[in-house]
């Protein structure tokens, strides 16, 4: 039997995924060891391999078939725009992709003038402003602490993930528009889906049952 390889997003998403997998009898003891320096973990019994990767890299691994299955946030899938099967909404890691800014910035979104938008997600922001709102904007790509941009005057608004909104409130910002809801998704390589259809479909069915129960 061939190994099925999972690419998991480092951090909370991987932790939650392992919890779910454990409930359907898939364990990976090696991975629980916090001090390990191993990069790849194997379950010989079930012929499974796991590795951790940075979020934006997970769709890449899956697209090229280096991993058969990936667990990754919908935001990353949308931003990367890769050719994958997005087979299941895992229901955890729920949040929203939003346009945020000070309340005074609301007016900029109404009259379609050129504004500056800071974001970690230039593709999502571009698609939203250009194709859905028909507004020309100047995109500024940042790599973290996006909330800072409108405060220091780098941009009028930002496009970012909002979970509870507390960071926004503390900094005098608010959600101006919601782009779409987000959550963790299970993605599958199209070739693997066909060549290993039985094993993967079985896994999806079990995961789905579990997600519904939770």
């Amino acid at each position, binding site marked *: 039997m*061939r190994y099925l390889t999972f690419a998991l997003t480092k951090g909370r998403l991987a932790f939650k995924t392992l919890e779910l997998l454990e409930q359907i009898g898939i364990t990976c003891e090696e991975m629980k060891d916090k001090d390990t320096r191993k990069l790849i973990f194997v379950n010989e019994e079930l012929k499974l391999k796991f590795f951790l990767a940075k979020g934006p890299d997970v769709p890449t691994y899956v*697209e*090229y*078939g280096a991993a058969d299955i990936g667990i990754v946030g919908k935001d990353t899938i949308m931003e990367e*725009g*890769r*050719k*994958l*099967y*997005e*087979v*299941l*909404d895992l229901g955890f890691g729920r949040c929203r992709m939003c346009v945020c800014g000070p309340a005074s910035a609301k007016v900029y979104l109404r009259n379609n003038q050129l504004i500056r938008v800071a974001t970690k997600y230039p593709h999502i922001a571009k698609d939203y402003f250009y194709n859905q709102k028909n507004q020309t904007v100047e995109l500024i790509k940042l790599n973290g602490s996006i909330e800072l941009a409108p405060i220091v005057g780098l941009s009028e608004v930002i496009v970012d993930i909002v979970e509870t909104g507390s960071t926004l409130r503390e900094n005098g910002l608010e959600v101006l528009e919601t782009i779409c809801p987000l959550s963790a998704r299970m993605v*599958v*390589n*199209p*070739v693997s*889906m*066909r*060549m290993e*259809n039985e094993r993967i479909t079985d896994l*999806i069915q079990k995961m*789905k049952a579990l997600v519904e129960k939770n």
Partner: protein
Amino acid sequence: MKRLIHTPEGVRDIMAVECDKKRYLEHKIDKLFRSYGYQSIQTPSMEFFDVFAKEVGSIPSRELYKFIDREGNTLVLRPDFTPSIARAVAMYFNQEDMPLRLSYRGSVFQNNTSYQGRLKESTQMGVEFINDGSVEADAEIIALAVQTMQRAGIKDFQVNVGEVNYFQSLVEEAQLDEEIITELKQLLDIKNLFGVQELIEKQNLRKDLEKALAQIPSLFGNADVLDTAYSLTQNERAKNAVLRLKKIYELLKFYGCEKYVTFDFSMLSKYSYYTGIIFQGYTYGTGDAVIKGGRYDGLLEKFGKKAEAIGFVTEVDSLLNAIERQKLQLPVKDIKTMVLYPASLEGLAIRFAADHRAQRMEVACVRFEAGHVLDDYSEYGKRNQFGGIIYFRSEKEVYAINLSTGETESVDVSRYL
């Protein structure tokens, strides 16, 4: 000035063993196509933009390489062979109503920026079978697709077959809104089974129709799914689509190809010109299908000839990657021979080489330059895929050196003296 000697992103040089392997594979596939009576056709790399315009249903305009000629026409580098061949057939075979079998090989160009690491120029080989709308034509083309994989030496592969009419007729019967259809297609495209179910349940459809549509993503697998698909619907057109696949499957048994074929009713193609069966060939080692094809009975009409047609394309570069990554061997050997001679024996060396070339050997003459030793030439030979050296030390002393084993034996060249 610093010179740019690397290639632009997305295009590459192929050489040495890799190039030999590619040529070998292309030759094998070409021979297969010929064995089915396909004749070669070459179309130009550039065409008028209209050949690939939106109505044709090929690649989106922004992924085309476009430029303007002296008269102001927009030209494109072909991104896909089928529309080019359809145009050529409409031009040269307008009155022909008997079957035409054409095969092609060449580069296609896709300006696809979002997939870093993907080639923008890649080699495709394919066939088009025109003026034949029969089930037999469908089966022949699928059998050829299966055999293309086999000729490449691949053992673990599948050819997935779908029928666009099944999905389309159900959607038409359900009278879904354009927006819902788009959403449904998107969900099917990412094989989101549960997303499809939820969307369909919200539409308040007739129960049997709801069940059939919600089941489409799971209609995947061996010939048994044909019976399931047939029993799910009362729609005449959908039933006919399944019956056609059944007939194709029966015919494929005569070719001995049926065990490589699976069925998938949720398969959608990014080319909207397909009107009947569509299929894709998959194997390990590439993230995407290496063979893509289908029936396109409406495409030629867009170029002024009413004709039914079916064809497929093989992505040669992806197929080579798959062969490489599955550690399969293409029998490309180092069989070139180096005739190594001192300047004084050039006449002898040239006569010797010419005689062996006439016997279909691959022979390169290399002059032994002062300042080098024999080992330099052995290394040089190994770097450049030579299998052996015929070393002319003098008229009397001639040795054959096998570069892979290092064995040396003397050769009698008296008849060339």
